[in-house]
């Protein structure tokens, strides 16, 4: 063995007892889906893990009905403190079964076990703990006294942080008093179905959470279902746009957490070693399958060569391989489809004239892999500087002045995240003020916490997840009784919806006729 060679240290799969087939979780029990089942594979081996059911429109309908029944009959009648107790139970059960969930997530997603074990699953538990405590304190959520739940929430989540995204969606929805129909991503349904078993252990009332699996068709059927009151979606900007179009004119409340092209800005006075660690964390964490990834490195011209040299040296130490190995830094790309997209955009980067460099690592024979890669000599017009690659690919640009850094950072239709590396506090504060992004990390990157709101500006979506603000996505103000004068200010008018629009048009024309 040479220096930096490690003996294999695989996490054991023995504590997992997976079924060969998984059904839909509707009204508290598993049922067979009426669509065509599909296989979920381990992207590191391309071996089948299990067969997953597909929910067709009738199944979606059943799930929404179960959620509605549970909302009307049970969940909306519980006290906040009882709802909170269920969430506390769920948090504890997640902690108890953390190792099992981490292994399952790594198998199904391809991300390294050290990330699922130390980041994903601990945050899942933290999210339920945080929102559990909110359930009986909603008067302080910021939407006025005695706020009301929305009803049935439809939630569609992506494959990059499967169980963590589930927690981000379900915990605030339940705390606020809603019931849920959640659809995990097609390639990563497994941990959501294990989570359904946890809900059974928690004895959560039937129908409060329903989990339906399937492809985009199932998701569309759910989002377009007339029986839901809320849509929460995390995923691509193109799907987000389609959802925004489809809920237009309805009274469904919508929150979207979409793509990004985050700028990670390194000033010449930054602590370079820490910055290099932050750059690595920003783009190679979770194989770069992170909507808030720092995928554009903006480095001050005077330190460009030094930063790139040190970054390359650091990248040579990243270990790519078996995601279950505790020493693995870079796991598998989640799907063949995603790998193809990463390859296509990277090839475009070369064609457009940027210089490509990848770390030397042995790519396993089976599975989907992409070596950590950086592009230098990138200009702002290059596709790799504009499009979200969603892979371990970093585009490096340079700047001379803070104003140029800000202009380049903001030169994107996205606005999700940004990073600032500098030793000068006043500069960090001033630059942070000017960046059009929802989450900014100063001298750190890719930090998440249930108390900290997360979400985008511009085409990165709207609404926030996490913190007090994350509750607002699932609450509405108490019904007003009102005078319009400013003395009764701060209440909400009744919005016109498709349903009430025709009625109000009628009354408006009746008013005109009366005159």
């Amino acid at each position, binding site marked *: 063995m040479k220096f930096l060679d490690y003996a294999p240290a695989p996490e054991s799969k023995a504590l997992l007892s997976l079924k060969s087939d998984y059904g839909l979780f509707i009204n508290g029990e598993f049922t067979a889906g009426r669509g065509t089942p599909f296989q979920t594979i381990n992207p590191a081996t391309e071996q089948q893990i299990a067969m997953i059911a597909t929910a067709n429109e009738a199944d979606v309908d059943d799930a929404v009905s179960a959620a509605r029944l549970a909302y009307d009959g049970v969940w909306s009648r519980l006290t906040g403190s009882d709802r909170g107790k269920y969430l506390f139970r769920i948090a504890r059960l997640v902690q108890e079964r953390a190792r099992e969930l981490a292994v399952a997530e790594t198998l199904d997603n391809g991300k390294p076990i050290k990330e699922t074990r130390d980041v994903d699953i601990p945050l899942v538990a933290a999210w339920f703990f945080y929102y559990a405590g909110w359930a009986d304190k909603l008067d302080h959520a*910021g939407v006025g006294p005695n706020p009301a739940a929305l009803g049935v929430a439809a939630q569609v989540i992506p494959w990059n942080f499967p169980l963590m995204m589930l927690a981000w969606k379900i915990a605030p929805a339940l705390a606020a008093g809603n019931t849920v129909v959640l659809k995990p991503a097609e390639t990563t349904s497994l941990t959501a179905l294990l989570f359904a078993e946890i809900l059974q252990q928690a004895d959560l009332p039937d129908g409060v959470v329903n989990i339906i699996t399937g492809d985009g068709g199932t998701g569309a059927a759910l989002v377009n279902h007339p029986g839901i009151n809320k849509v929460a979606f995390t995923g691509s900007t193109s799907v987000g746009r389609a959802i925004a179009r489809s809920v*237009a004119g309805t009274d469904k409340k919508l929150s979207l957490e979409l793509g990004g092209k985050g700028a990670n800005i390194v000033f010449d006075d930054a602590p370079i070693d820490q910055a290099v660690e932050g750059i690595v964390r920003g783009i190679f964490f979770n194989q770069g399958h992170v909507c808030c990834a720092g995928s554009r490195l903006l480095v001050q011209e005077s330190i460009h060569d030094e930063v790139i040299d040190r970054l390359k040296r650091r990248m040579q130490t990243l270990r790519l391989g078996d995601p279950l190995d505790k020493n693995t830094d870079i796991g598998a790309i989640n799907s063949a489809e995603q790998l193809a997209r990463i390859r296509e955009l990277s090839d475009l980067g070369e064609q457009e004239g940027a210089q490509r460099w990848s770390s030397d690592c042995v790519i396993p024979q089976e599975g989907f892999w992409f070596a950590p890669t950086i592009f230098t000599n990138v200009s702002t017009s290059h596709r790799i500087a504009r499009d979200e690659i969603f892979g371990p690919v970093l585009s490096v640009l340079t700047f001379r002045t803070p104003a140029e850094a800000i202009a380049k950072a903001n030169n994107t239709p996205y606005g999700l995240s940004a990073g600032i590396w500098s030793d000068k506090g006043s500069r960090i504060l001033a630059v942070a003020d000017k960046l059009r992004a*929802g989450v900014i990390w100063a*001298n750190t990157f890719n930090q998440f916490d249930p108390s900290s*709101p997360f979400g985008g500006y511009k085409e990165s979506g709207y609404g926030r997840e996490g913190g007090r603000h994350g509750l607002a996505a699932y609450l509405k103000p108490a019904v007003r009784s*009102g005078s319009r004068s*400013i003395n009764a200010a701060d209440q909400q*008018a009744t919005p*016109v919806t498709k349903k009430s*629009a025709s009625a109000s048009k009628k009354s408006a024309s009746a008013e005109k006729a009366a005159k």
Partner: protein
Amino acid sequence: MNRLAIPKTYKLYIGGKFPRSESGRVYEVRSHQGDFLANAAKGSRKDARDAVVAARGALGGWAGATAYNRGQVLYRIAELLEGRRVQFVDEIMGCEGVNAAVANAQVDEAIDRWVWYAGWADKYVQVAGNANPVSGPFFNLSVPEPTGVVAIIAPQGNESLLGLVSAIAPALVAGNTVVVVANENAPLSAISLGEVLATSDVPGGVVNIVTGSPAEIAPWLASHADVNALDLVGAGELDWVELQISAADTLKRVLPPESGEDAAAPALSRILAFTELKTVWHTKALL
């Protein structure tokens, strides 16, 4: 013999100036009794685009002004409106066919609404922002910031001045700039409000007022890629679902139409509807 009055030419208000519509078009504004009052400019697609350019240009200065300063500027609008109330009462009586008492009450409410919103400028961040107790060595702060350029279809109902003020004031509080399509049938007080804005301390381009047909202009604003948010409060009679669908292409923040007495009622939620929450993580040293 009575003195012959000097009637006013009503034009658009864009970028702090009062241009005619580039299209050269006007439309007749008539009183409730059917008498001719004025030829208002019939704004075009290009006027709307010019207004967006002006609003974008003014955004940095207005959003970058201190909250204390923005509050004082908004309060000054109330001062000037109070001083010119007679003109507004006349226009409202003319356009809306109401008596002096009703018109005066509307102007009162419009002035008070400026004062109410002015007071929010340096407070909404405190009410809607948050310090977050993250589990790590970080100082973590969330603050709301303006969304950007907000396009507004002003309420088209009876109270033209109050409707307009109720729609634009909350968007301005946070530092957004505005393009507003005025009440089509009663546009006179909108342009006169433009004169108030022009002679107050509101920088040119912060508020841009286009008169004409909302049905004609709104689609261009809804699809405009440099508009960040769309307030459809007065679009209830338009094909507003189409407008919302069109706005989805650029993921604009959209407020739906409102109807009835409470339309655009004063609310903190109207201010926050056009803000974005920014969360900054600052690393703390380990001592």
